[in-house]
């Protein structure tokens, strides 16, 4: 995973609550056995006027011109501004894969669904929880100004607005560390291999039926 660095990016407003992971990436694209290539099908059912198929070249498909990501002013957006409970539903990690493949680096919302929230951090995508009033204000500002961009500074835990004012946000210290350093957390966990083995030895004594039943 690449290190997460401070960046400034165009904000795309997706004014909708309870955006589920089926909407982020529909099921037919989950048949892929790769982690990449999902970007063209991000929000497929909102973005195009026809039904998408896996492996299809999307460049000739009819676009829904009303959808936010199809509007010229939001091209190249790296920050998605949205409403509460973003990423609910299916645990598919294809959702953050599609968002990052498209080019998003951060999502701002009043709340996120648990599994999606967790999946983001595994893929260098920063979900930021902000107060609903702040989100409301950001929606108003983004819609009012063409090319509206925000700076995301994870190290300082600040969103910096075009006028220089700052919005502080919380992030779990372990997850922040992993994002900033681009760490593979499997490698980190394996540093505790001895503790895992010790736990297993103890558990095998207490609950032997949990071991070797399936083979």
């Amino acid at each position, binding site marked *: 995973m690449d290190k997460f660095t401070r960046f400034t990016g165009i904000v795309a407003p997706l004014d909708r609550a309870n955006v589920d992971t089926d909407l982020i990436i529909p099921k037919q694209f989950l*048949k892929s056995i790769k982690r990449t290539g999902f970007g063209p099908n991000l929000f497929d059912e909102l973005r195009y006027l026809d039904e998408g198929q896996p492996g299809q070249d999307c460049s000739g498909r009819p676009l829904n011109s009303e959808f936010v990501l199809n509007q010229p002013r939001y091209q190249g957006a790296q920050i998605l501004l949205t409403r509460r409970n973003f990423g609910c539903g299916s645990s598919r990690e294809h959702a953050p894969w599609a968002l990052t493949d498209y080019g998003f680096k951060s999502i701002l919302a009043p709340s996120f669904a648990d599994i999606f929230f967790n999946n983001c951090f595994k893929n260098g995508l920063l979900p930021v929880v902000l107060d609903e009033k702040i989100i409301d204000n950001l929606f108003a500002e983004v819609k009012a100004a063409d090319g509206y961009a925000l700076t995301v500074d994870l190290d300082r835990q600040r969103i910096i607005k075009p006028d220089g004012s700052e919005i502080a946000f919380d992030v779990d210290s372990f997850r922040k560390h992993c994002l900033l350093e681009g760490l593979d957390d499997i490698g980190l966990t394996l540093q505790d291999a001895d503790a895992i083995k010790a736990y297993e030895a103890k558990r095998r004594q207490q609950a032997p039926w949990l071991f070797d039943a399936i083979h």
Partner: protein
Amino acid sequence: MTGKTLYDKLWDDHVVKQRDDGTALIYIDRQLLHEVTSPQAFEGLRLAGRKPWRIDANIATPDHNVPTTERSGPIADEVSRIQVQTLDDNCDEFGILEFKMQDSRQGIVHVMGPEQGATLPGMTIVCGDSHTATHGAFGALAHGIGTSEVEHVLATQCLIQKKMKNMLIQVNGELGPGVTAKDVVLAIIARIGTAGGTGYAIEFGGPVMESLSMEGRMTVCNMAIEAGARAGMVAVDDKTIDYFRGRPFAPRGEQWAQAVAYWRTLRSDPDARFDAVVELDGAEIKPQVSWGTSPEMVVAIDEPLPDPAAEADPVKAEGMRRAYEYMGLQPGITMGSVVPDRVFIGSCTNSRIEDLRAAAAVARGRKVSPNVKQAMVVPGSGLVKRQAEQEGLDQVFLAAGFEWREPGCSMCLAMNADRLGEGEHCASTSNRNFEGRQGYGGRTHLVSPAMAVAAAVAGRFVDVRDLDPLAQEV
């Protein structure tokens, strides 16, 4: 010292290491694998030159992509075929037990796990599927994870986690006739909302939960995620223990006695503290139907659909307006005026033998209405299918005009060929009514198996309790 909740106990028993930053390394006893969310995890292992930490902690079966029609030949859809083949190849390469498509034990992972005794009380259970909460019905800590975590568990047998908060949902009283576990969980989601359980592990308790069979408890826990909670669970009792007697991977002999003694401790202490408590009266729950595009958009069958203009929260009201437009419905009507084009009985929520018995009891001696294009029953596993056939349920369904299919996830998410056409309404026993979930432009109405059959035979959504029993030719 206050007592512990069931979740506290399960958590404490699996802490490998508590870290200073508030996270903990949690040991995972069982991982269930299927074809959709595992290929990239296996590929990750290979690229890093890693091996699975513990082969015997894993069990696999393909379910999302498999056809539910005759399946002696290869899968017709090439992309699906490659994905299922990839699971087969990965399991063969790493030595992981898999029930392949032609195996009679193949089925939806969340049906197969308990059925085999691969799910047991007191376990931590994960799967790259959000409906893993199902297994919490057995007093286990079970939740869905993403593919990176599937790889993490394969490589380390652990997850890095932060403890969730405790919520108790207490369902008091008793259910009326014709009201089922599915109606209970839909009523719960309608009450607390799709984000009501976010950040919590939910324990479902109270007399109604105690009265439910293990299968009913699985239905309730299955949809914890639709209430926002990754994990739902129910305390262990005699029903839980009886369920596992003689299951293939359940302990035997001396280990059985030892296990049972431990399992009996898996309930919240009387003085346990919950961060949130929600109470419902079971007697007030009527058969439920979802009308919108979120599982919280649910009404009782006789209730008029809600008016967005009366909704104080503007974000919610906007969601309702969007849902009405997508569903082609209007506020103020009742679901009795809606015609289901298709009826689907199946999914990890409602495809177990008890669900099929409940559905067959309504279907017996009745016929699918001619205005319903298709009504299908998809058993949760090959073993459920066989059991149903031994009981003659397949003949009941076929005589009524239902299709009797092979096991899999099927039209719950339409990854295989089973799907809705654009604009079609479906009475579905599945768990999600999201836009496009059951097919591009499809319109899902979540109901219990009995209510799905009632809709099929009446040709519109009706209260199963209002069907004329005399019209049933027995």
